[in-house]
């Protein structure tokens, strides 16, 4: 018997708590479920929950508390890249494992982080060809919040657009968290594009879609195809404003499997909100705990090094389907899907990959499945 302590580090306060609280809840729910079925190797998981307070400084401090003082072998946590970057030195230099559930821009290869969210190739490699070939839209206006993820997504998109015979009209950025879209939407209107690729994040998304409609643009003529707009933002903006637009993610609440339905039920019961929505990062927050459990069980002990070895190649039947941790780069195989949003605030899956896609965090730098930059020994810089 006994206990294994793990860290759960999300923002409980501040602006990011909007999303991060749900990630924390999903993590805690997974822990509850594991404990209810006998724990890990007969040991109960004891979560130590800390508040990142939506501030990288706090994130850094709490991470070092968890790793150095509480000596947890693993921390599940964080949503933004900025907070992940702030905690990274702690995990790398103090050798502990970090499980990161969010889709992100790639370009990371750390032996101390397990990434269970999508990387650009898992969101874009089917999306762009589908837009061009199936939707028949060719002229892209790429818009995003001004930080790394949207800029990297734009970079990958441009390559894919070119490869598939489309053209891109412009890429423009708005300050993160800003919600004045008047000028931008007017530019989109005048640009002559026929599709908008949106990498806008956070609450700016809502203002964007609303302004889009207010200026008389409609998704049947000029659809927004998004990489970040999830069930949360759709619910927040009012589904009307998004009807007909598209998003690419490996997970949607609308995935029509008994496993997912049950998952949603359990989650709603867990947070006590019958209307609670689930989304990609939330689902990853959930299943990554199970991957971790399997890794500990395989390794037989819960030290960081054992977990790192144990996690390689782990597979789990997640609500979105089969997920597997790539033994080479500790990122996760996920199944890209595209959904079109309906008036009920749910997506209809209009396209899905037949099987999970290999994660390639360096795809924008020319990484291909045959030529992986990230290896089990870390980044192979000679390939850059």
């Amino acid at each position, binding site marked *: 018997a006994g206990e294994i302590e793990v860290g759960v580090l999300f923002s409980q306060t501040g602006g990011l708590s909007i999303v991060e609280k749900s990630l924390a809840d999903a993590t805690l729910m997974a822990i509850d479920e594991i404990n209810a079925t006998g724990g890990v190797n007969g040991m109960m998981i004891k979560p130590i929950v800390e508040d990142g307070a939506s501030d990288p400084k706090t994130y850094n401090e709490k991470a070092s508390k968890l790793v150095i003082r509480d000596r947890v072998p693993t921390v599940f946590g964080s949503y933004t890249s900025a907070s992940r970057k702030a905690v990274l030195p702690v995990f790398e230099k103090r050798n502990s494992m970090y499980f990161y559930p969010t889709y992100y821009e790639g370009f990371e290869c750390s032996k101390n982080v397990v990434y269970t969210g999508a990387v650009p190739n898992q969101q874009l490699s089917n999306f762009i060809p589908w837009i061009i070939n199936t939707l028949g839209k060719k002229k892209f206006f790429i818009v995003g919040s001004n930080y790394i993820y949207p800029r990297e997504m734009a970079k990958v998109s441009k390559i894919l657009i070119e490869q598939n015979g489309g053209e891109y009209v412009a890429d423009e950025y708005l300050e993160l968290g800003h919600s004045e879209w008047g000028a931008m939407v007017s530019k989109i209107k005048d640009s002559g594009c026929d599709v908008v690729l949106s990498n806008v994040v956070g609450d700016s998304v809502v203002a964007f879609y609303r302004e889009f409609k207010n*200026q008389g643009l409609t998704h049947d003529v000029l659809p927004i195809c998004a990489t970040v707009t999830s069930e949360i933002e759709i619910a927040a903006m*009012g589904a009307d404003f998004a009807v007909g637009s598209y998003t690419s993610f490996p997970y949607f609440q609308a995935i029509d499997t008994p496993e997912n339905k049950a998952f949603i039920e359990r989650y709603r019961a867990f947070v006590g909100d019958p209307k609670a929505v689930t989304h990609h990062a939330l689902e990853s927050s959930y299943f990554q705990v199970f991957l971790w459990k399997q890794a500990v069980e395989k390794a037989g002990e819960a030290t960081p090094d054992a977990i790192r070895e144990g996690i390689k190649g782990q597979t789990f039947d997640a609500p979105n389907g089969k997920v597997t941790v790539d033994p080479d780069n500790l990122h996760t195989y996920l199944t890209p899907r595209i959904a079109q949003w309906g008036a009920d605030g749910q997506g209809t899956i209009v396209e899905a990959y037949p099987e999970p896609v290999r994660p390639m965090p360096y795809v924008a730098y020319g990484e291909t499945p045959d030529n992986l930059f990230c290896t089990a020994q870390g980044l192979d810089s000679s390939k850059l």
Partner: protein
Amino acid sequence: MSEILFIGLSLSSILLLIALGLSITYGAMGVINMAHGELVMIGAYTAVLSGIYLNLNLFFALPLAFVVSALVGLGLEKLVIRRLYGRIIDTLLATWGVAIILQQLIRLEFGLSFFGIHIEGLGPGLQNMDVPAFLTQPFEIAGIPIQPYRSFIIVVTLLLTLLTWFLMYRTSIGTQVRAIMRNPQIAAACGIDVRRVSAFTFAYGSGLAGIAGVLLAGFKTVMPDMGASTVVDGFLVVVVGGVGSLLGTVLASALLGQINGVFAILTNDILARAVVFGVVIAIILWRPRGLFAFKSR
């Protein structure tokens, strides 16, 4: 061209909407109310909740939000601000604390979430307000496309500005407010009920924030910290215009809004923001008391 002007105008109107209340509470009362953004937020939540529970639309939410924010402002004045008149920096610090408290109260659903009670429409998540369909459908007049929601904001802002101007410069209560703003002791010695008038003024300024909240809720997410980012812009406008000058506030928001709009169209939004900050700094250096400041000997 007219489109650029319209974008600038709508940016200006939103700046003015937020700055109007501040221009009263700061300009007339010397209170730097960092919780002004939270009063905006409360106005927005009023719209959300009145939509959910009372089925009221935007138009009814406006007066309701005015009343709710004004009442919260009144409470704030009685509990905190009242003890801080004349200590301008202290008002900034104390209301900073108040802002944190108000945000957190909404997030924790007034603390009920500790007991597992959930109020729909509150909490840390994102909320929204429904906008009547005719306000989101653009139409054309004489070939010029009109965006009804933006136009609606511009009109409401204009009306509020006129109302405020009338109250401040054409009524006895306005004279009393301005007298208190210069010298509360002598105002009292002249028979003005300083406490009541101050409380009224603060409540009025807060009420304006509430209205701003409803209008913002029409195109922004409603969430606990939605107001925090607006308040700084509001202060920049009030200060650039000249503290205590309603006209200055109006012109400063017009100027900054247009600059923002023009640069956003010609270059990009980021640069436009940077230019606005640069202009603010330059104006204060050029006119250390703002564009329209009263000069004493």
